[in-house]
């Protein structure tokens, strides 16, 4: 993994008052993203607007495509053309992107997609918040594959985690998602952008061996294949069909087994290196509240009240949602009385907590169907009931 410093051209060093959507764009520019293709959709549009305003002075391309199908397709082309590329969308657009998210996974293409989630299904609540695409990001395209998804809880983290998303996508050659929501997307807060020399980026894993020996899908020791770009004279082939290391289609069960296992194991086997969670007062906890994104901020108030009432509560904030920290949950499940999982949906990540706990401790969902954040008292009530 070759680390490089950020190009100062894209870095707006200083202390700013930005909303989460703008911070996503600034994070992308700081990370060296020089290609953005998108389609307007509330509540994510401001990211595209910001990028389109800033990119002409940085050197790169913004293009508003005809739809989200085209946006994600263009990202794949740009990534293989050598650029770091990004798009941003929300529920309905995210659904349209699913087809080529599958292609991006199959081609092991580094790119970043931010989803500023709103209430669904369908057109749902365009202007109001939700966390209802958390399973879609994991399973939404057909077939078996694995991706990386991060969940920022503030405009500052929209900036920081977009940079991290670019780094992870380059390290693992995998589409990486910043799963924020309307609330964080439209929330204005202080965002500190450090000087370029303090922003550490990961360079693409470029191949440098003999031209005729390049294999686009031959796993390296860390399972991640080397990459080249179109135009460098390798005359390589890549396909969305099940393929061998050459990138040639091989339509049989044996090749499918190797190909699919690789796409999944590449992430699963590196999960410990990818996963980031934030824990608080876990060691003494009887109840552990697991949350992510905006819900973790609402949880803070509920947990404070619970502690005031004498309940031993710990918290886990998922910064990485996928891959899921299943080992840690499994470990804690043996010690704690219950997990409480508030999320702005009717039960998604809670299933993963339940699966990881494997019957050792119950996982109690505090649902909210979208449109607003939880009332902290609803989370408090669940904590109190769990503690009984």
């Amino acid at each position: 993994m070759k680390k490089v410093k950020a190009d100062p051209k894209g870095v707006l060093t200083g202390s700013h008052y930005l909303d989460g959507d703008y911070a996503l764009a600034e994070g992308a520019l700081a990370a060296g993203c020089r290609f953005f293709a998108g389609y307007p959709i509330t509540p994510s549009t401001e990211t595209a607007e910001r990028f389109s305003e800033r990119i002409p002075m940085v050197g790169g391309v913004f293009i508003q495509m005809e739809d989200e199908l085209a946006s994600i397709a263009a990202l794949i082309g740009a990534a293989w053309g050598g650029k770091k590329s990004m798009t941003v969308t929300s529920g309905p657009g995210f659904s349209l992107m699913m087809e080529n998210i599958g292609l991006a996974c199959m081609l092991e293409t580094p790119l970043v997609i931010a989803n500023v989630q709103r209430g669904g299904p369908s057109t749902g609540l365009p202007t109001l918040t939700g966390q209802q695409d958390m399973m879609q990001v994991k399973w939404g395209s057909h077939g078996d594959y694995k991706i990386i998804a991060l969940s920022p809880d503030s405009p500052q983290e929209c900036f920081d985690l977009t940079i991290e998303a670019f780094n992870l996508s380059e390290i693992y050659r995998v589409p990486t998602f910043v799963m924020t929501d309307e609330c964080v997307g439209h929330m204005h807060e202080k965002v500190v952008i450090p000087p370029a020399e303090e922003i550490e980026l990961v360079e693409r894993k470029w191949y440098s061996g003999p031209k005729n020996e390049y294999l686009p899908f031959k796993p390296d020791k860390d399972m991640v294949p080397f990459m080249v770009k179109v135009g460098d004279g390798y005359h390589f082939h890549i396909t969305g069909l099940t393929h061998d290391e050459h990138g040639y289609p091989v339509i049989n069960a044996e090749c499918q087994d190797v190909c699919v296992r690789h796409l999944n194991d590449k992430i699963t086997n590196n999960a410990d290196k990818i996963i980031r969670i934030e824990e608080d007062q876990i060691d003494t906890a009887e109840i552990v509240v697991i949350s992510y994104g905006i819900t973790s901020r609402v949880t803070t108030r509920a947990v404070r009240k619970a502690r005031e009432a004498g309940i031993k509560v710990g918290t886990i904030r998922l910064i990485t949602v996928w891959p899921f920290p299943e080992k840690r949950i499994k470990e804690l499940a043996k010690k704690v009385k219950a997990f409480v999982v508030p999320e702005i949906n009717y039960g998604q990540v809670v299933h993963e907590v339940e699966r990881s706990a494997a019957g050792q401790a119950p996982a109690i969902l505090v649902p909210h169907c979208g449109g607003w954040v939880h009332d902290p008292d609803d989370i408090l009530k669940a904590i109190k009931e769990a503690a009984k």
Partner: protein
Amino acid sequence: MKEEDRLEERNPIEDLLRMDRIPHIWCPGCGIGTVVTSFAEALRKSKIDLDKVAILSGIGCTGRVAGYIKLDSIHTTHGRAIPVATGLKLANPDLKVVVFSGDGDIAGIGGNHFIHAARRNMDLIIICVNNFNYAMTGGQVAPTTPIGGNASTAPYGNFEYPFSLPYLAEACGATYVARWTALHLRRVTKSIQEAFKKRGFSFIEVITPCVTLYARRNRLGDGLNLLKYYYEKSEIQHGADTRTLDISYQGKLIVGKFVDKEKPTFLDCMNEHLAKVLGDKYQLYGVNNE
């Protein structure tokens, strides 16, 4: 006998093919391979730097072309070759980016991408092999099937109005538009050569026989019968008004080069406009590609 002595047994374009993937999947009598040969000829005659040509396909019989040509090649999803090509071209403007796909892929599922790439005058070459049906999936009706043509999902004959692809391309802003048949191989080659020299959205439609499905269902005979049909019914009319190019069932085929004009491309417009508005602050893009 040594391999190199057996010249007569070697494919004349094998240096441009992925010979480790041959034999190909196309049926005997299919016209796609002949268009590939024309493309290879055009590459050779254009003396273009092969490292700087990329070929992309969508899905379908013609979608397999990218997998057989020894260039940087991407086999994308159904209908999405044009937007992938758009991203690739914009990321690396030094490239000549070619989309080689079928009528269903480009005009059916990918129709929206096709019209918008033409509207933007994206610097791409689109080679559309039109065999009047969805052949890979077994001969279903397509947006190009002539009225009356039989297809597996139009078992009583097609009654929908088909697209006239050159008319569509010109209306959307293409700067080069030609139509040929699989009979006009040298002309296809010449059109592709001309497109290589141009900057802008170039569209070349090639009507080809689908012997196994379209011809069989419609009892049109074999590949030779279809070439005879092209021979008898095609008429070269360079510069013809693209509004007059509708294709009726086994009817007249007007072929030729219909549009060949100059117009600034997407990147030309972007650079010119932003430089004008933003002045020195603007970082000119894609000139020497950083």
